[in-house]
Structure formats: C-alpha cells, structure tokens
C-alpha cells in the first residue's frame, strides 16, 4: 500500500527533474603540470521550481560544479567524468556549437561581479536583450518590452528608461539586478547565481536578495545559488548542498541543514557564523593618565581646494577615545571613510584639521614628524595579506625586520623571538624559511598580525582583517586576536563592514556614515550585547540588513523604497545637514533638511548624531522588529 504511493512520488520527481548530476568529476592541472581532481563524484538533482544552494569555502569546488552545469570548465580544468543532464540535454557530451545554443537560453548565469561582467561601452538595454536576439527568440521590440517588465519586477528605479544608461551610471546593487534581468530574458530552464551579492554592502545586499527572491518565486524559476554565506542561502534556497574539497558533505532541505546538521563540517560552518562572544576586557582603570589614543575634531579630505577642484570630505569632525587594552570597532559601508580614519591615525594620510594624541602627547600629522617610538606603539594590519607581505622576503625576514628596527634584536635572539611569534599566532616553526607565496590565506593573515605584534605595540589598527578570508578561517583569526589581547594587553581598533565581526569582540562600536560619526555605543556589560535600542537610523538599517540564520527572515524585514520614506518639501541643500537624509525612514521635513543634527549623549554612555531624542528613538525602535537573531 505504501509502495505504490512512493513510486508515484518518484515518478512525479522524474517528470519534473530539471537537473541531474551524477558522478561528476572535474580535474585541473596545477603549476607542476600534474592532474589533480578538484570535484570528486558530485551527485545531486534539482526539481522544477526548486532553488538549490551550493555552499562551501573558497576552493571547495562550488563554482566549478555550477559552471559544469553549463558544460563549461575554466581554463586548465577538465570535465573528466560523470554526467550532467539539464532539461534533457546531456551537457558533457555536447559539442561547443550545441552548448552555445543552450547557454543563455536553457541555462543562464549570473556572475559575482556584475561590474566586471557588463561591457562599459554599450548601453544596458542592448546587453540585457542580447541573448534573446542571439538565440532569435523574439523581435527586438518584444525583447525590450520584456526587459522593461523584468526591470519592474526587480524593483529597479525608472524601469522604462534605465536601459538607456551605461553600466557606470547605475549603482552596484542595481547592476546586479540588471544582470538578473539579462539572465531571465530568455526564460531559461535553469538559472545559476554565482555569489551574486558577495561584493555588495549589507544594506544593498538585502535589496538585491529581495528582488531575486521575488522574481524566482513569481516565475517559478529553477535556480542554483552558489554562496559561502549560509545566512544568505537560508533566505533563498529550498535545499542546500554542503561542499568541502570537491566532495559533497551533506545534501538536505534548508530547514534540516540549519536546525539539525548531520555532518560535522556543516556544524563547524554554522558555529563559525555566530562567533563566540568574548568577555569584555577588564574595565580599563580610569586612572589619572590620559587615554592611550585620543582623536579630536579630525577632518580629512581629498582633492585640492585651490585649483577650484571639488574637495571630497572623507572624514568630518571625528572624535574618538581608545582606552588602554580596549577594542574599538569602526563600522560602515564602503566609502564611509573608515579606512581613511585608520590611515590618518597611522600617519599615512595627513588630516586637514584636528589632532591625534597618543598618551596625551600630540602626534605629528604625517609620517615624517613621528619618532620611531611612536611608530612602534601604533601598528597597522592591512586588509589583504597577499599584498601586505613582500613576496621576495622570507617569513623570518618579514618578522625579523621590526625586531631589528625597533628593538635592535639581531642573530640568535632575533631568530628565537621570530619562532616565539610564530608560536603566538599558532603557526609551526617550519614556515619561518618560506616565502609568503607558499602559505595559505589564513596563514598569511597570521603572519601579518605577527609582524604587528613583533613591535610590541600598544595599539593595533586592523583594517578588515577577516573580510578576505573564509568564514571558518576568519573566525579563527578573531579568536586568536581576542586571546592575544588578554595576554598582551594591547588595544585594537577594528575596522569592518560586517557588524557581526565587530560585535563579537569590541567594547565600543563607532558607526561611520559619509565620514561622520553617527553613533557610538558601549557594550552593555550586563547583557554582553550591543543591540538594544535606541539606534541611529543608519545603524538600525545596518543591523537590520544582516541576514539571520533562519528561514523567513527576508520576508519579515520590511522593505523600504524611496517613495515610502517621509516626504520632504525640499531637498537638503545647506551644508551640514544629516548625510543620511536621503535614506532615512525617520526624517522630519523642515528639521532634518534644514538644520545640522545635534550630537546627543545617551544614558548608556554612547552618543548619537540625530534630531530625534533618545526616548523618541527608543519608542520608535521597540520592539526591534527587523533585527537579527539574538535580539528578536
């Protein structure tokens, strides 16, 4: 009685199966011309209307498998065995000509970087409808009408005319959505999305995700979503395939993977996403001494005012205090001036106004005026360890140089200290004689950190140190930094675009928007968390935009379009008004676009740059509806 029912379901599955991959093996040639297998016998299938996510770290083979669905292998790779069937076509046995007939029509691809995928010299419309014309599916006029319809569905502004623009005239998030329109114009049987939101800011990512989800649902598209971010995938996918080193670790429904992961690797991935909360540093003793570092009224700008060239103000009246042994997090979206702030403190960028005090003593604005001792006390850790380590120097030399330079350590003593440093950052002594090119990304970042530690600094400026790393590796680096802080009593200034990273290890968080410090808040000692209202409206948006690791989060977050914001009688034209005005949901006509916002001290020790009072903000933001996991 059970059997016939089961086989009926099975039969139905076979009917609706769009993609069937079995025993897929992909090989690649390495530098030494040896053949290595990078995908080992992948097996999965996708039913019609289903969204399957391929998730894994870099090098896990997720993009390789996604490309194999188009019958394509990157240069140097070879589709060595197995079978891939997409909508009845055996992709691996087709010739180039036949594949060309399927690509863009039966299978469409949305790449990670839309900015790099659009031709900057052609209008957007021509590129969006290109595949429809190539495959001769419809006349030009029909294709353009369909494109406009897609633009509307994807919630793009001014859908009738956006196609007339060139790629550089629209934002990154819009470009990513336009690329989705390009892929969907032919109504493909299968859409492949390869990390489509990884390069975007969180606030932009949420808009793009919402648009994607809507289109996929409305059109009943079958899709493969490639990502390293489980929280993003949780919003989009029906099923998740977890990959590691080219092998499928686990394949299950999204709800099951998130709630009851079967494989230990999946569990470790989930664990890495929610980093451990670290106990706050022992409350810095407020002694007679001045704080370790103090930034007063800092302004920085690019461009010269003399030649009539517009001056781009990058930092606007920044005040900051870093106590000894404390960790300050600086967050904001790309272009908000957070890296410039760190570079100004390090002396690499000269501020146009304001002063920086180290132990109450004024630091020279540029590198030239600083003493070696001042250099030693402030160390900078660069975002990208690939470029921050000289490729021609061995690790021993990279770590030995600050030892010799600041501490005059030579010969055996230096060697001994180098090995101690390697031990400190949990690397084996054997890496000392290697070149940076021979280490992995995570190892390089540890060396990068060890070089800063070699100086025995009081303050380490960390510029997005984990953003180039995989989640698991990044979490390990954060763990290490938190440990070192306890051991060595250093202060960190931790710059990130990812509020989760900052929140787990910082005592105080500073939010920058368009070069202004819009909010500062201290970690609540009792609740060990930062996320309690009131927030500055921008911080609120930022926190709300971080995807939560559960299904249905995307639907709960209320979408805001420019038209849904409070109306303004006139745009803010006077200088000094709130920079967040154009995106703010709480703006007040006649106030926000006329007067510069005041800085308000909050009861919890923080401050907010807003016209709304503390109580008003708290009322408006409680209960905190659209906020990530631990608050809601």
């Amino acid at each position, binding site marked *: 009685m059970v059997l016939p029912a089961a086989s009926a379901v099975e039969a139905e599955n076979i009917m609706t199966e769009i993609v069937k991959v079995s025993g897929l093996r992909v090989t690649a040639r390495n*530098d*030494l*011309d*040896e053949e290595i297998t990078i995908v080992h016998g992948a097996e999965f299938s996708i039913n019609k209307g289903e969204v399957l996510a391929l998730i894994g770290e870099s090098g896990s083979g997720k993009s390789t498998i996604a490309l194999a669905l188009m019958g394509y292998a990157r240069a140097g790779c070879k589709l060595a065995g197995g079978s891939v069937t997409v909508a009845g076509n055996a992709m691996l046995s087709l010739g180039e000509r036949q594949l060309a007939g399927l690509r863009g029509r039966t299978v469409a691809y949305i790449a990670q970087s839309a900015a790099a995928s659009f031709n900057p010299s052609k209008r957007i419309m021509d590129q969006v409808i290109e595949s429809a014309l190539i495959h001769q599916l419809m006349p030009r006029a029909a294709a353009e009408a369909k494109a406009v319809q897609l633009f509307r569905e994807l919630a793009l502004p001014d859908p009738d005319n956006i196609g007339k623009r060139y790629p550089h005239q629209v934002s990154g998030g819009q470009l990513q959505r336009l690329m989705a329109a390009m892929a969907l114009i032919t109504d493909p049987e299968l859409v492949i999305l390869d990390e489509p939101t990884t390069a975007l800011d969180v606030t932009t990512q949420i808009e793009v995700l919402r648009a994607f989800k809507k289109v996929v649902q409305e059109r009943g598209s079958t899709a493969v979503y490639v990502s390293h971010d489980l929280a993003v995938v949780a919003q989009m996918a029906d099923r998740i395939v977890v990959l590691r080193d080219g092998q499928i670790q686990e394949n299950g429904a999204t709800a099951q993977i998130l709630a009851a992961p079967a494989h230990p690797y999946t569990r470790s991935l989930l664990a890495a996403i929610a980093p451990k909360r670290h106990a706050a540093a022992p409350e810095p003793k407020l002694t007679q001494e001045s704080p370790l570092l103090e930034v007063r009224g800092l302004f920085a700008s690019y461009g010269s005012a003399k030649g009539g060239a517009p001056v781009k103000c990058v930092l606007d009246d920044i005040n900051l205090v870093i106590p000894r042994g404390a960790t300050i997090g600086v967050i904001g979206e790309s272009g908000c001036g957070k890296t410039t702030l760190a570079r100004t403190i*390090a*002396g*690499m960028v000269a501020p146009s106004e304001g002063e920086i005090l180290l132990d109450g003593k004024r630091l020279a604005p540029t*590198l030239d005026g*600083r003493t*070696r001792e*001042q*250099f*030693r006390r402030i*160390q*900078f850790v*660069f975002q*990208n360890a690939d*470029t*921050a*380590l*000289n*490729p*021609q*120097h061995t690790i021993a030399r990279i770590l030995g*140089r*600050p030892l010799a*330079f600041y501490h005059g350590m030579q010969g055996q003593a230096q060697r001994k200290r180098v090995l101690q440093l390697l031990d400190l950052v949990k690397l084996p002594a054997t890496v000392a004689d290697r*070149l940076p*090119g*021979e280490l992995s990304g995570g190892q390089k970042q540890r060396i990068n950190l060890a*070089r800063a530690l070699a*100086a025995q600094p009081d303050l380490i400026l960390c510029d997005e140190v984990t953003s180039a790393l995989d989640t698991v590796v990044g979490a390990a680096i954060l763990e290490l930094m938190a440990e070192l802080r306890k051991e060595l009593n250093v202060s960190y200034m931790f710059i990130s675009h990812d509020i989760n990273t900052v929140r787990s290890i910082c005592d105080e968080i500073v939010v920058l928007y368009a070069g202004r410090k819009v909010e500062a808040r201290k970690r609540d000692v009792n609740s060990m968390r930062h996320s309690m209202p009131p927030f500055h409206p921008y911080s609120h948006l930022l926190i709300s935009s971080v995807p939560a690791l559960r299904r249905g989060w995307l639907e709960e977050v209320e979408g805001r379009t420019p038209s849904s914001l409070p109306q303004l009688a006139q745009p803010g034209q006077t200088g000094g008004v709130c920079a967040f005005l154009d995106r703010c949901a709480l703006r007040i006509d006649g106030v926000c676009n006329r007067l510069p916002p005041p800085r308000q001290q909050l009861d919890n020790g923080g401050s907010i740059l807003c016209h709304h009072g503390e109580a008003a903000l708290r009322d408006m933001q409680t209960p905190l509806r659209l906020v990530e996991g631990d608050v809601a």
Partner: protein
Amino acid sequence: MKPTMISSTARRKPRARLPVAGVIGGVIVAFWLVMAVIGPYIAPHDVGGVAGDAVFAPISAEYPLGTDYLGRDMLSRVLHGAPYTIGVALAAVIVASFGGTALALFAAASGGWFDAIVSRIVDVKLSIPSKLLALIMIAAFGSSVPVLILTAGIGYMPGAYRISRALAVNVQAMDYVQAARSRGEGLAYITFYEMLPNMLRPVLADLGLRFLFIVLLLSGMSFLGLGVQPPEADWGSLVRENIIGLSEGAPAVIVPAIAIATLTIAVNMVIDGFAGRKRRGG
C-alpha cells in the same frame, strides 16, 4: 615512463629545474666574458702582425679563422676585439641601466616637481635617436673609449628610466611598501630592500635587451669608422674592414659577425631563462 620521472623530481624541488636554453646561453656568455679578459693574452699572433701575402686566406692550421684584408690573423683580431666590444658595452649598459633605475627610484620616491622635471627632460631625450646623438657626441668630442661608453650609456638611459619608473610607481603603491612606511622605515631601506627586489626581474630583462642594443650601436659606430680607432678594432670594425672580402667568401667578414650574433643571442637566452625560472619559483 619519462614524464612521471620528471614530475616526481619536479615535485621535490621545483626550483632546481634549470631551463636548457638558459644554461646554453649562460655557457656562451661566460665564454665570451672570459675571452674579454684573457683574449688578448692567449692570441696566437700579434694584433697588428701582418703575416705576409696571404690576404683573405681561408681557414688553415696556421690561421684557424683565416686572415683579414691585410693578411693579419683573424683569431687574434677577434680575441683582441673582445674586450672592446664586451667591455665597452658592459660599461655602457651599467651606466644606462643603473643610472636610469637609480634616477627612476629617486624620482618615484620624491615625487612632485623633481619627478616632473626629470621625467620631462627624459622625454626630450627620448625624442632624439640614439645613433644621431652618438654621431653628434663623436663629432664634438672625438672618438675614444670613455666617450663611447658615455655616449651609449646616456643614449640608452631614458628607456631604462621609463621602465623603472613605471615599475617603481606600481610597486610603491603595494601594501608592503605602505607597511614599511607606517613602520617608520627610511627611504633607503624602502627603496633597496622593499621595492628593488620586486622590480629586479623586469629590470634585468630590460638590462639584457639594452646590452644588445648597445653592442649593436657600438658595432654600427665602428662600422662607420667612428668607433674604436685602428690599429685596435672591435668586432664591428672588423666587419667593416673586411667587407670587401664578402665577395670572395672570406671567413674574415663572417667570423666577427658570428661573434656578435652568438653574444647577443646568448644574452637573450640567459635573460629569458632567468625570468622564467624565477617566475616558477614564486
């Protein structure tokens, strides 16, 4: 099977693999360098010694490379010419490449008006053909070894400057240079220890090319009679002296030409092999 063997050794020590062409080139270059030093001492005959009436004699036991238009021993002439051709070219290339690179590093590091002025002067210099410059220099100062070295050196410096400056500006923007600056390192350390090692490969490849151009320029000058003056002769002059032997098929005109060709090709092979090897080593 053979490929397996190669790959297994390669895996153990990928950097120990030497390119065959590079080794051959290296042997030839080393041979000529040795000849430039000891050549004049091991020459079997005197450089000006006329051997009698055997003009444009063919290859024989007495004269292994034949004789020239005056009946002098060609082998001795080539050996005596080696220090001129190789020595002058080497000195000139050092002036050109080292001078150009040093100037470029200094200009890139200091930036601002110094960089602008030096770069414009170099642009002006680039617009003058090097052969024309050489002719003017020799017309003004006469032909002597120091003048030749300076002429070739100055003539080929702008190209070296341009390449090095472009490299220096790129390398300067790298994070590890920024890291050294924020560490408080001095200009000299940053330039010589952080930047130079990362520019060396293209600069060396350029040095090899420049060496060839200078050999050819000097040979050309000598061919015109403006290079090394008789009775001494570099290889270029040897070709010119014996040019009338071409119709007789005399070895005297072919031998110095072959010497120039082997030297220039070998230098190129060494540079190519060097660059390739370094790249694989990472």
